[in-house]
Structure formats: structure tokens, C-alpha cells
């Protein structure tokens, strides 16, 4: 039972990470029918930029290791802000280099161009930080919390709390604000949105900034659990993509739900046999898609004849 609770907790934390990234996929897909296939590479600066700034601030080289004493909550918050801002800004570059030339062209060109952008980013990061991983202490310390007998890492709680807060916040923004309304208008029909005076390109760029910033946030949130390194991204982004598809790429809430679902299933299967995690998850995803091709909460698209 404790093992189950423990797995459930870490599954929810990991699922929150998947959900954050998946939500980013939803936001850009809604506006342009594209998303960043190389999103994994965006987790890398997310985890490394903020941490390196902290390292420089305490007078260490940018690729060293932080001690627990140096990682206060204030420091972590500042690092998070730095990461989110930097990665969000990279999202603008992503849009101009890899998305804009291919929007509306159909085909697979945008898939390859975003993968290409990701490869360049990852190798730039490799040149800056090298292949070694950097241990990042959690601002809440490393001592395991005992809840109902189950050992839960404080960082997992932090991840879940921050991720849920961001998701709820974005959900409100998307549904209640002028920006959210404009975003949905662009998603529904860019030409009509432009006619009523919405600056479509600004909205689209903002969508990519948000999506990238979410990946950056995911990167720094997960760093104390996985350590920060150039290679953490691909696996996580692939699961986040799966979460978005299974939950329904066209539904923000579906993407978040898909994230949690995937995280929990992964953790519970891991409890049974760790090596069966990926096999089980991806077989499940294939089955779900055969039954519901547009995901659990996605809108079915019907071609008008």
C-alpha cells in the first residue's frame, strides 16, 4: 500500500510535468496546427540556464554543482524566472525559423524543421555545458516527507503544486480573458480573426512563447529529480507528446488530463516491472487511439463533403 501511494505521488508529479508540456503543444496546435517536435531540447536550457546563473552568482563555474545551502527558495524562484524568460524568448526564434515558413503548407516539413531546431539547440547546449549532468538540490531539501507511511520527495509536492497552479491559471486565461478569446478565434479561423482586428501573428508568437516557457518551467521543476543535463529532454517530451495525443490535442483540459494519466500509469506499471513501462504505455496509447482517434477529450473532426 505504501509502495502504491509512493508510486502514485511520483506518478502525479511526473504527470504534472507531462501535462505542462502537453498544454504547450495544445496552445500552439490550436493556433497553427503545428507544435514543436523538438520540445525536448527546450527542457535543457530550462533546467540549465537558471541553475548556471545561480552558480555564477555564488562565484562557481557555470557547470559546477550547487550545494543545498546555496539553493534557497528565493534562489530557486529567481532561477525559475530566468529559465522561463530565456526559454520563452527562444520560442520567438523557433517561430520565425522553424514554424512560420511552413504554416498552412501541410505535410511533414514543420515536423522536420522543429526537430532540426531542437538538434541545433541541444548541441549548442552541449557546447556550453558539456555532457556531464549537474546535481540540483531541491529548495525544499532532500529529506523525504512521510505521508500515511509513504515516502514522498518534497520536490514532487512542489512540482505538483506549481504545475497545477500554472494549469489552472492558464485555463482561466484561455477561457476568460481577451487574449484567450483572441487565441480561440485564431484557432477557429485565422482569416476571420484578422478581419475583426486581431493581430494573428502576435497571437501565434505569444502561443509559441507560452509553449516554450512551459517547457522551460518543466525543465527547472524536474531538474532536482532527474539532475540537469543536456540529455534529459527527449524522453520526457516524447511522453508529453503522447499525453497530448491521448488526452486530445485540441483540448487544453484533455492535454492536462492526459499528462496525469500517463504519469500515474507509468509509475504504477513501474511498480510491477520497470522494464515494461514504455511497452505498456505505448501499446495502451495505440489502443486508445484506435478506439478514439482524436484522443479522450479531443473534438472529432468531420470532413464536409
Amino acid at each position, binding site marked *: 500500500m505504501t509502495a502504491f501511494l509512493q508510486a502514485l505521488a511520483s506518478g502525479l508529479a511526473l504527470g504534472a510535468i507531462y501535462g505542462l508540456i502537453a498544454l504547450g503543444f495544445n496552445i500552439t496546435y490550436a493556433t497553427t496546427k503545428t507544435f514543436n517536435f523538438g520540445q525536448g531540447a527546450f527542457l535543457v536550457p530550462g533546467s540549465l540556464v537558471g541553475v548556471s546563473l545561480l552558480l555564477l552568482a555564488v562565484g562557481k563555474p557555470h557547470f559546477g554543482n550547487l550545494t543545498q545551502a546555496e539553493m534557497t527558495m528565493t534562489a530557486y524562484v529567481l532561477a525559475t524566472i530566468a529559465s522561463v524568460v530565456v526559454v520563452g524568448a527562444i520560442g520567438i526564434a523557433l517561430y520565425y525559423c522553424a514554424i512560420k515558413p511552413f504554416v498552412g503548407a501541410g505535410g511533414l516539413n514543420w515536423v522536420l524543421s522543429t*526537430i532540426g531546431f531542437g*538538434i541545433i539547440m541541444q548541441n549548442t547546449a552541449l557546447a556550453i555545458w558539456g555532457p556531464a549532468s549537474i546535481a540540483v538540490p531541491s529548495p525544499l531539501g532532500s529529506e523525504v516527507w512521510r505521508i500515511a507511511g509513504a515516502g514522498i520527495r518534497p520536490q514532487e509536492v512542489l512540482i505538483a503544486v506549481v504545475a497545477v497552479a500554472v494549469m489552472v491559471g492558464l485555463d482561466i486565461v484561455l477561457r476568460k480573458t481577451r487574449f484567450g478569446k483572441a487565441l480561440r478565434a485564431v484557432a477557429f479561423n485565422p482569416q476571420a480573426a484578422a478581419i475583426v482586428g486581431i493581430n494573428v501573428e502576435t497571437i501565434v508568437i505569444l502561443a509559441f512563447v507560452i509553449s516554450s516557457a512551459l517547457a522551460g518551467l518543466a525543465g527547472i521543476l524536474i531538474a532536482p529529480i532527474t539532475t540537469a543535463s543536456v540529455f534529459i529532454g527527449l524522453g520526457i517530451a516524447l511522453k508529453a507528446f503522447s499525453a497530448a495525443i491521448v488526452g486530445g490535442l485540441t483540448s487544453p483540459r484533455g492535454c492536462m488530463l492526459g499528462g496525469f494519466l500517463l504519469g500515474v500509469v507509468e509509475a504504477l506499471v513501474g511498480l510491477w516491472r520497470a522494464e515494461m513501462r514504455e511497452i505498456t504505455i505505448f501499446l495502451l496509447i495505440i489502443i486508445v487511439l484506435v478506439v478514439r482517434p482524436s484522443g479522450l477529450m479531443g473534438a472529432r473532426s468531420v470532413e464536409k463533403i
Partner: protein
Amino acid sequence: MPALAHAFGLAVLAAGLALVPFFGLNDFYLQILFTIGVNYLAAAGLNVLVGYAGQKSLGHAGLFAVGAYTAAIANIEWGLSPWLSLLLACGFGAVFGLVIAMPSVRVSGPSLAMVTIGFGIVVEKIVTEWTDIFKGQAGFYGINAPSIAGVSFTNLHWVWFVGALCIATHLMLRSLLAGRYGRAFLAVQMAEPAAQSVGISVVRAKTLAFVISAVTCALAGAVVAQQNQYFNSDFITFNLSIFLLVVVIFGGSGSLYGPLFGAVILTLLDAWLARWPALQHFTYGALLLFSLYLMPNGIAGAVSGLAARWRPRKAAPSDIPGHSALAATPSAAASGEILVVKDLYKAYGGIVPVRNVSFAITAGKVHALIGPNGAGKTTLLNLLSGHVAPDGGSIRFEGHEIAGWPAHRVATLGIARTFQNLKLFGELSALDNVLLGAHRHIETGFAASLLGLPSSRSAEATARADALALLADLGLGERAHEPAKSLPYGLQRRLEIARALASKPKLLLLDEPAAGLNPQETHELGEVIRRIQQAGVTVLLIEHHMDLVMGISQHVLVLDYGALIAEGRPEAIRRDPKVIAAYLGADDDAALTGDAA
């Protein structure tokens, strides 16, 4: 590419291969040539899937693995000869192609990407983790290479062997893709409903494309395992799937020569940059990012664009006489009820576009279906053609109960249609559009088409001649070789009719054929419909243009709010108070007064 230039190119390639031993190449260079061949093999099949059938796959590493592990296990564990293992690898490749096609044909867009990624990762994890059978990272050692007359393949032999496989694959795919199968793939990619309407099963076409790509990819994997004599799970990665896709798209998907460009350039680049791994990755990334921006259709697209500017394409007339489907004279005047509809019902939630409609269509006549906008006319047509499944009722066509049949099966019975919002195969020529209409009449087996047998060539030539005759008959002869999408709107409408006629239908359904036509074109359309009737084809058309309807039809059906409110001869319909009320609106008092009088 003209036949002569093609034969010359093949001869040069074969001569080049034969002369390889005289170039004094060391094993490093032989290995590069071998790798080019392997990448071409895998990409050539994948191109059929991606470039022709329009499907995406980000999981072909899984199929590469199927071939490689079949070759390894068949040889080492089951003691089969290397040749037999190679054949078996292709067979297993085909089986797994079917396996991945089953979920894939049901989804599209990002979900399709997900299903194929999932397949690739599941295979990757199985061969990594299930070490009892697949030996994981330790891998299989001592996989035997094939031998001829007791001599095991050297690296030079491998280059020759793979070169021969590539040429054979190229010739087969060239023959297949030039014929009805190639056209069917493209039709599925461009407009699924239209492909169904000419009798192409979308599911079967996509499945076939998956199987073809799986076989060549498995063959490539098997050849690598045998040449390497060693294979482990590290070969099978998500990156391999991406790489194979890049070879196709960078080279130029949908072009027969795209995979060749992709395989040669990317393999050479890879080998050349291997000394500087960091630079290699940057180049690879930059290539992905910018090359498609500069060349949206890959290298083959850029090359053929240049070639077209240099040497404009000329139309080739047919050298055998053809028979226009429109010129056919009915053997016996058809009569009786060809189509009987009873209590047909379709609802979308609370909206009921077709509400218990019953009517009969008499053979040999022109029938018109009219009604105000939103009356459910197009939905009714979609039910008849099988594009939408009814919720209840019966549709009998020549004694067959076809309610609920898929559209491609309905089409094979002899019901053809056009679409209100044109659904032409836009990138294909007018001729190819009509040839697709004739799809179900070009009787060529898969093997005959793959091997380019004379039977397949003559069937193709006959169909081509007939299609050209039909186009000429409809005044489209001059433009037979232009892409359909570049024709003026009126001619596009007419081309859709030509495509439908090419299937030699018994019943032709026309959905607003006069929409967007000018008066002159509308008049010509009336003539065309009369000629269609004279050729013995029964016509049911939806039309708002009342002059046209009243002029050419012998029987009019009126639909309003999903219900049939009147039917009869045109002159009777013109005076029917219910019809007038439906079109012009009448308040209840007026209607009552009318009834009382």
C-alpha cells in the same frame, strides 16, 4: 523521365557498379556505397507510404528491426540458410507492415504520428529488454552472409548485391507507381472521399502502402545484419526512424528519384562529417531546419522544377484509338426502377436532415432533387453514394441492399457521383483524374503491375486511350495534361463529370453541377447531361438552377426540412402549392386559404 533517358541512366549505374573493383576503393569506401544502397532501399518503400499514399511514419526503425532480427534469428537459432533468412525477413516485414497498418489506417494527423512512434518504441524496447530472445545490447554474433558457389560475400560482393536489389526495387516501384496502384495512392492522399467515389478502398490502399514500405525497410535491415554479421538493439532508435523519414523528405517525397538523392547526399555527408561529431550534429540540424525552407519538395522537387523550366512538358497523344464512355450506345433501353429508397433516415443529434424519405428512380431518366438550402439534399446524396451511413431505412440498387455499404463498394456496383465542393485530385493531370475514374475497369493484378508485365501495360494503354477520347468528347482534350487545379472553374466542374463517367456508371449522382457556372456554361452542361442520358446512364442531380432542372429532367423530387414534400413531372411540381410555400414561404393563413380553395 523519358524511357530512353531512364534506360541510359540505368546502364550507366550498372556499368559503374561493374567497374567498382577497378576504382581501387578500400573497405571504407565500399562500406559507404553499401550504406547508400541500404538507405535507398529503406527510403524507396517509405516514399511510397509518405510521398504517394500521404501517410506519415515516425516508427520505421521498428520495421528495420523486424528484418534485421528475422535474418539473425532465422540463421543462428533456426539454422536456416542466409538466402532463406533474407526471404523470410521480407515476409515478416510484410506481416508487421500489416500489423502497424491496422491501427494506423484508422487515424490521421498527429494521432498517426503517435501510433507510428509508439510502434517504433515498443519494438525498440522489446528487442532491448527481452534478452532471452533478442539478446538485447549483447546482440547476435556470427550472422552468416549469403554465399554464391560456396564463396561468402566480400564487401565488393555486398555492394554489387545491394546495387542489384536497389535497381530491382526501383524498376518494380517505377512500374507500380506509373499504373493504377500509383494513381490510387495519390488519389487517397489528395481527396479521400473522391477516391472512394471511384471505387478505391482507402483502407486497402493505405494498408498496401504500409506493407510495401515495411518490406523494403525489413529487407534493408536484414541486409545490414548479414553484412555486419552482428546486430544488437543499439541499432534500433527513434533517431533511425527520423533519419529514414529525412532521407525521403529531404530527397523529395512523392518523386521516384527523391529517395535516391536523399540516400546519396545524406550518406556521403554523414561519412564526410563523421570526423567532427559536433559539426555533424549541427549540420544535420541546420539541414532539417533550412533545406525544406529553400526546397519545399526536397532535392528532387528543386531539380524537376529546374528541368521543367528548361524543357517544358509536352502532351503525348495516344497511338491507339480510344472509345469515349459518352459515345456508348445502350445495348437495351433500360427500364424499370433502378434505385428504390424506403424510409431512409439520418439524424445528427437533434438535426434530422433526412427524415423517412421514400422514392424510386426509374432507369434511363433524368431525375432532379430540389429544395431550399438546408433541406438535406446533399446528405441524401451522401447516403446514396455511401459517404454517410444511414441510421435507418433501406436503399436497394438493382436488387442489392446497399444501405450502410462503404462508398467504394457502392461505386463498384455502378453508382458514380460528383461533389458540390469540387473534390478533384488537384495536383494530378486531367487525364489522370479520368484514369482514376476508370480505376475499377483497369484490370491489372498487383504482381503484373509490379513486374510491368505486357498485360498490365496494354490494359494501361487502352484505358489511357479511352480516357483521352472521353476528355476530347467533353471538350477537355487540349488540356488533358494540365494539372486539374490549374483548369478554370467551369472546366473543373466538367472534369469531375468526366471522372465520374469514366467509371461507366449505371446511375450518376450530380451535386449542384451548375453551381458557379455562367449562363453559357450552364447551357452546355444541359447538353452534356442530355448526352449522358442518351448514353443510357440514369441521372439524379441536385440543382438550384430551375431553368436547367425544368429543361432536362423528367422527374423532380422536392425535399424540405429532410422530408419529401412532393414529386412528379416538372410542370406539375412548378404549380404545387407545397413547393411554392417551401421556396417562397407562406404564412399559415395563406396556406389554409389555398387548401380550402
